[in-house]
């Protein structure tokens, strides 16, 4: 029997690897997916002037290997069962999640990680083991300030505040 498909809706089987989607509520902008994606379908674009980071997912470059789903630490990017991705305009394939970069506590410049990443890292520290407030105090530092702090700490005894 011939399928009625384009005239009747059709669902893909549950384990079908359809187009990936990023959930903007969960994504922390870590860029692990951009790192893992074999055909570079996901880009991580930082704008240090305006303090934003864009995670750009291009479904038209995606080979649906699910490497992104495997590495995403928050489960934000998932392969859906959607497969109807044909279009006449390539811009339709692009999904962008724009996130704010964190500001450095030392110099006030934008760091190379997002505010959500800081929150996520803080949320992962189980209470009671580390001194929570001191970690939170030190966390948003840019690489230069971290370097300075390390050098200062190495040359003096005891800890130095940034």
């Amino acid at each position: 029997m011939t399928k009625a498909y384009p005239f009747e809706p059709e669902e893909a089987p549950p384990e079908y690897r359809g187009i990936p989607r990023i959930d903007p509520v969960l994504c922390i902008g870590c860029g692990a997916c951009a790192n893992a994606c074999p055909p570079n379908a996901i880009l991580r674009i930082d704008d240090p002037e305006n303090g934003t980071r864009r995670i750009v997912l291009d479904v038209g470059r995606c080979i649906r290997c699910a490497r992104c789903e495997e590495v995403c630490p928050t489960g934000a990017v998932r392969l859906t069962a959607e497969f109807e991705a044909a279009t006449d305009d390539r811009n339709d394939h692009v999904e962008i999640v724009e996130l704010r970069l964190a500001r450095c506590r030392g110099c006030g410049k934008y760091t190379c990680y997002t505010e959500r990443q800081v929150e996520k890292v803080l949320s992962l520290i189980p209470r009671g083991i580390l001194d929570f407030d001191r970690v939170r105090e030190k966390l948003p530092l840019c690489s230069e300030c971290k370097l300075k702090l390390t050098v200062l700490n190495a040359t003096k005894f005891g800890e130095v505040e940034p």
Partner: protein
Amino acid sequence: MKSLWVFHVNTGACNGCDIEILDVLIPYYDIERLGVKLVPTPRHAHALLVTGPLTRQAYHAAKMAYEAMPPKPRIVIAVGTCACSGGIFHDSYALRREYRESLEYPLKGGTSEFLPVHLYIPGCPPRPEEILYGIALLKNIVEKKVRGELFREGTFVLPRESFNAWVEVLLRARIRKELGYFDGYSLLRRFMELVESSESKEELEKLVEKTINDEGDSRLRYGLEKLYSYYLEVVRTYEGILAAKRALVGLPK
């Protein structure tokens, strides 16, 4: 346009997409219902069905085929991720492509390097339904479903509170080794729900036992048992560290 006669060009595809094009021609999918016919020469074709990432060798043949088509309507349909944007072969030395900055999007490559493309059907390979859908879209039978989206910073949710989030990270790495990401992660989500819904250790133990008994799939049963034993291990380690620290600092219990 009522009927679309297509000529199929392979510009260096791995053959996955070509097989799917054969698939849509079989009686089960029967793309000829939509008036599509595969013709053996571009001179009879309305549309060029291009697969593949456009290698340098295939470029000239594809160009000749395009020029041999009647000047109207000269539709170009890119089938497969390779033809849409270069796909997995996007940075191969064998491709004909322009040099460009790597951070431009939508990403370029494939057929659009040399031809104006009228329809993109991504997928690696696209399943036969996707090709059917694409052709139906060209003939205005169905609506377009995908849309470009831009999400700016909005609500942000951390799914779990700190201890459970930490446990989840540790369990994730282990269950991936045991069951792989597909079954492993969904099982982990189920397990974490159990952890969050139970108040005490005894309750969790009962819940996990019940879930294991109800589960029909032996792989998932094995995974659940492993998850539970890892969970207990993590909790034990955490309590051990906490006790050691208390003893060191001399904090009261």
